Each structure stands twice: as C-alpha cells, then as structure tokens.
C-alpha cells in the first residue's frame, strides 16, 4: 500500500562545521506517484535518499539535521534513528554490493530479505516467483546471484527490496550500470509500480527521469531550484543551463523532439491501429 511522503524544511550537515548538504528542503510526494530528483554531482540527491531510508543517522551520528519527515502517519522530527525498511526500501547505486553472497540462488537471495524480517509467507515460492515474473527475471530464479549481468543484478536487488512491499521505494541512480535495453526494462517495471508504491529516484540521466516521473525535483547545492512536472521542466530547461550538465541538456532536447514527433504522429498511429 503506497504512502504519502512529506518533507518539511529538512536541513542537513554532515557535521556542525560542514556546509549544508541539504538546505530547508520541502517536498510532497503523492501516494503511488513517482518523483525524480535530478541535479549535478554533490547536489545532495543521495543524501536525501539516505535521510529517508534511515541510514544517515546510523552512519553519520555526528550529522546535524532539522525539519520533519512524514511517511503516511509516521512523523520523524529531524532524521530517523533507525533503518526504516520495510517502510522505506532503498536500492543502492551499485547493484553488485546488494547481493548478500550468503545465498546460492536468486530465489533464495530474495527469500533472504523475508527471513531477515520474519515475514516468510506460507508459500514463499509462489510469492517470490510472482514478483520475479513481474520483474521479468523468473527464468533466473535458480541461477547464482553473483553470475548475473549488471541489468539482471539490478533487478534482483530491486526484487530483494520489493518483496517486503515497502510503501516507499527509494532508488539511488538506478540507471548507472545499465545499458539502454536494461533501462527500458527498468522503466516498464517502475511504471508498473505506479499506484502501488511511492517511488523516489535520483538520476543523472534526465531523459530517464523525464520519461518516468510525475514530479521532478532539481537540486543544486542542497537547495531545490525547480519543482514541477516534467513538461514544465522541459519548457523552462533553458533557465537551468548553468546547473544541468550539457549532456543533460542534449538529452532533454532529444527527449523533447522525440516526444513532439510522437505527438505529431499519434493520430496517424491511432488511425493505423484502429484500421488494423
């Protein structure tokens, strides 16, 4: 069951003497929607996800934070002191480090999460196979998790988190290790989660974010410099040429032109399909 996420005036410093990694950040993400956080390296994208997952306070106990995080009815003043899984599940950037190495097959690797949480259902095979099927990796169920490709490993890592049905899914630069084919598969998976899970993802690839998100957040130096829907960002993209790297610009332009072409040809395609 997806949950509403609200962040109010969240500020973060890794230590009292450090500059602010996040500065008075406020955000609302509707239950079941997808929010993409984009921005240059060091903008604070991953820091925000780690704050939401509950790993920030654990790994940086000297960090100083203020503001509020609300997930559904649960309110945290400042940062959560514990890992929020399975309320919020974070998939890290490097898929290979997420494979535990303590289980022999993909099926057991996914089951491992349920074992940790004490949530093993009556028929774990049915539950896990149904998820693996949704993610298109059911044929890998008996394979060794360490013998998979980057895209496959990414999907196994995703399955290992999704099996606990977290209301909030956090993805830290999920497209980094993926080729375009694997990116397409991930895009379809994330679209299938719409309505069921609230998704927050960070990405440096603006076209991926534009194609998947309901809401885009542009971060720079820990501050939100744009918040809105992809269409609005595209119409104002020239305002952010100093923040977004040139390749992001090109990706956005390319996305815009293919989107326009698609819109122009949509009636013809619809007509052709109806004729068929």
């Amino acid at each position, binding site marked *: 069951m997806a949950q509403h996420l609200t962040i109010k005036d969240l500020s973060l410093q890794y230590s009292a003497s450090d500059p602010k990694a996040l500065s008075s950040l406020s955000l609302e993400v509707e239950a079941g929607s997808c929010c993409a956080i984009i921005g240059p390296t060091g903008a604070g994208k991953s820091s925000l996800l780690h704050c939401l997952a509950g790993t920030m306070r654990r790994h940086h106990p000297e960090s100083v934070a203020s503001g509020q995080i609300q997930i559904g009815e649960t309110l945290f003043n400042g940062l959560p002191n514990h*890992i929020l899984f399975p309320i919020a599940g974070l998939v890290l950037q490097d898929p290979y480090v997420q494979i535990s190495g303590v289980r022999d097959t993909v099926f*057991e690797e996914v089951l491992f999460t349920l074992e*940790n949480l004490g949530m093993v259902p009556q028929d774990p095979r049915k539950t896990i196979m149904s998820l693996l099927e949704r993610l298109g990796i059911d044929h890998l169920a008996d394979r060794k998790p360490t013998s998979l490709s980057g895209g496959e490993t990414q999907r196994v890592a995703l399955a290992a988190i999704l099996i*606990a049905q977290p209301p909030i899914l956090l993805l830290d630069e999920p497209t980094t290790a993926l080729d375009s084919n694997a990116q397409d598969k991930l895009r379809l998976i994330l679209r299938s989660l719409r309505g069921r899970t609230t998704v927050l993802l960070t990405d440096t690839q603006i076209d991926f974010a534009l194609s998947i998100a309901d809401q885009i957040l542009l971060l720079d130096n820990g501050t939100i410099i744009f918040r809105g829907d992809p269409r609005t960002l595209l119409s104002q993209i020239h305002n952010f040429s100093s923040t977004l790297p040139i390749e992001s610009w090109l990706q956005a332009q390319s996305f815009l032109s293919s989107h326009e072409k698609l819109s122009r040809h949509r009636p013809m395609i619809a007509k052709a399909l109806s004729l068929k």
Partner: protein
Amino acid sequence: MRANLDLSSKLALVFLLWVCAFTLSWTFQFVLCLLLVIARFVLPAFRPISQRSAAAFSKFILYSISVAVLVVCLNALFIKSGSMIATLLGFSFYEDGLLFGLRTASRLILLSFSILMFFISTSLPVLIGYLQNKGLPPYLVLMLLLTLHFLDHLPSRIHQIFLAQQARGAPVDAGVFSRTKALLSILSPLVLSSIVESIERGTALELRGFLSKPSPERQPEQVETRVNPLTVCLYFISIVIIAYSIYRWLNI
C-alpha cells in the same frame, strides 16, 4: 559424504589439527599435512567447492613448500648450535637450527592447511547459515561475512589494480623487484576501495533487515540438539592430546 561431515565436525577437525600443531612432533605434523592433501583429493567432504578454490589450494601447497624450505634453511644456517650437518657453497648448516626450522615450518603449514581446507570445502552461504542457526549475533556474522567477502575478492581486485597500473605504464611485469615495488603502490587503492565496498555491502545488508531483531526463521536451533558422534569423538581426541601434553610437560 559431504552431507555426512557437517560443519560442526569440520570445525572439530580444525580444532584437533590446531591442537596437534602445538603438541605433536614435527614428523607427525608433516604426516598430517600429507593426509590433508590426500583428503582433498579422496574425501568428497574436503573437495574444493569451486575450481577457483582448487586452484588456490594447489597454489598454496606450492607456496607452502617454498616457505617451509626457506624457513628450514635459514634456521639451519643462522642457529649455529649442535653438530654441523652439511656445508654447501661455503655455507654451514647446523643440526639444532635444522630441527627448530622443521618444527616451525611443520606447525605453520599444519595451521594454515587446516584453515584453508575448511574454507575451500565450505561455501560462504553454508557457513553463514550455520553461524546464524547457532545463534551468533548478527553483528558478528556481518563482520565475518564482510571479511570473507573481502578475502574472496582480494586476488581479482589486486589483478584489476595491477592492470590499471600497467595501463598507466608501471613496470609491473619486469620482475620480482618491480612487482614488489608495484605492490606497494597498489596498497592504498586496494585498502581504500575495499573499505568503501565493505561499508556499502554492510549498508546494503542493513537495508535488507540483516541486523534487525532475529526473526523466528533465524532463531538459534532449539528443537533438535542432536550431537554428531564424530564431532564428539574429534573433540575427545583433542582433549586427550591436550591432557597428555600437560602431563608430559609437568613430568619433565
């Protein structure tokens, strides 16, 4: 056969071999080392779990023989007591040094062989599952897991860094001296990348609830506490050897 020799028995065997390494004479220890090498080929329970493990064990045997010969020679050369047993290229070797070298070498080889035999024939999932079932705290299991993972990936990581150094023009293939020099330069990237990866791996496991309160599925074994007779036998032999060694020591 692999199933018959469970992890408890294997651990008991390692314990027995360690006891032997500190109590028995070097001749016995060399015989035990030889038996371990034979067991690796004959007994399915001691067969390496992968080709990589088998290759590591074979390499280790070669290195061990070289190290043993070196230890024996150096001791025989530098501990100049007892009768002189041989002179080679103007260097004299002495009996007491030779015996001390043999004792040291046999002990080192037996200790390392027993540990290596355990790890090459036991997969990480089996070991971790066993420790979890025995109720070892998750923090300790996590630390052990990260350490073993680091050791498992160490050769490939060193190879990768060597390749990267080579690509930058470092003379890593020029000879032993150059390789040793290059090894020093790879230490900092090796340590740093390993630390970063270990932290990330630990975080990823935490993010999957690994350190959460033990679940019913992970509760220590409580129902069945059947003791393997072989395990008991191995521990009994170890205790007898320790007791005999203490008795002998007190009577000298």
